């Protein structure tokens, strides 16, 4: 089942898209999503290591569960302001 992940800033630029669709078994955890994302897009490896994740616009830790009906976003280190 394809899982959509939103990408921003350097992640969006490296992949060339504002979102990607991952082939992943659901439900899974954010840790699983990280593995699948980096396997599919190895250019994101360093960035994923220092990034946080958000599910439905709230920060989560890597043990958070993903069912497939949420908005998932990779949040690289922020630099606003």
């Amino acid at each position, binding site marked *: 089942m394809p899982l959509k992940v939103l990408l*921003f800033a350097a992640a*969006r630029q490296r992949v060339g898209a504002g979102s990607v669709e991952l082939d992943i078994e659901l439900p899974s955890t954010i840790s699983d999503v990280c593995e699948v994302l980096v396997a599919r897009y190895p250019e994101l490896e360093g960035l994923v290591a*220092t990034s946080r994740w*958000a599910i439905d616009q709230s*920060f989560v830790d890597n043990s958070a569960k993903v069912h497939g009906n949420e908005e998932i976003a990779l949040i690289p*280190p*922020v*630099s606003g*302001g």
Partner: protein
Amino acid sequence: MNDLKQFAIELVRDPIDTDRLLARARRPNCGAVLLFLGTTREWTGTNQTEFLEYEAYESMALSEMQKLAEEALGRWSIQFVSIVHRLGRVDPGEASVAIVVSSAHRGAAFQAGKWLIDTLKELVPIWKKDHTASGSSDWLHPTIVSPKPLTLETGMDDSGRVISAEES
């Protein structure tokens, strides 16, 4: 005593209108109105910035900024908070972010204002891209490397964090 607490949160793509922000912030029960502007700085060590470009995860940036305003209003004796962040191109000297705090007395405004900008820079999903005078452009994704003082050439900002530019 009128204890009504309000906030105003915005993402904009035009130059930040500080006159409008300040007009909205004045209240008869407030003796202090504090305005902080974060502006594009041209030089960081030997790196010359031609302009900064800001991108946001907009829905989450707005909700995180609202959470900051609500928390500040709860923690300090302040009456009004406004947070405005600009997206897109911001030239040297122009403001990318404005924070306004109104309070009865200035002590709370200064404390809340500092906390708001410090915390925005840690939590809000907004990113800046440095378009340099030499033609390169890098998204800035700062990771905390060391609390030890570093030289200007390594691009340390005034919070002590090392800015490591992602090659893009």
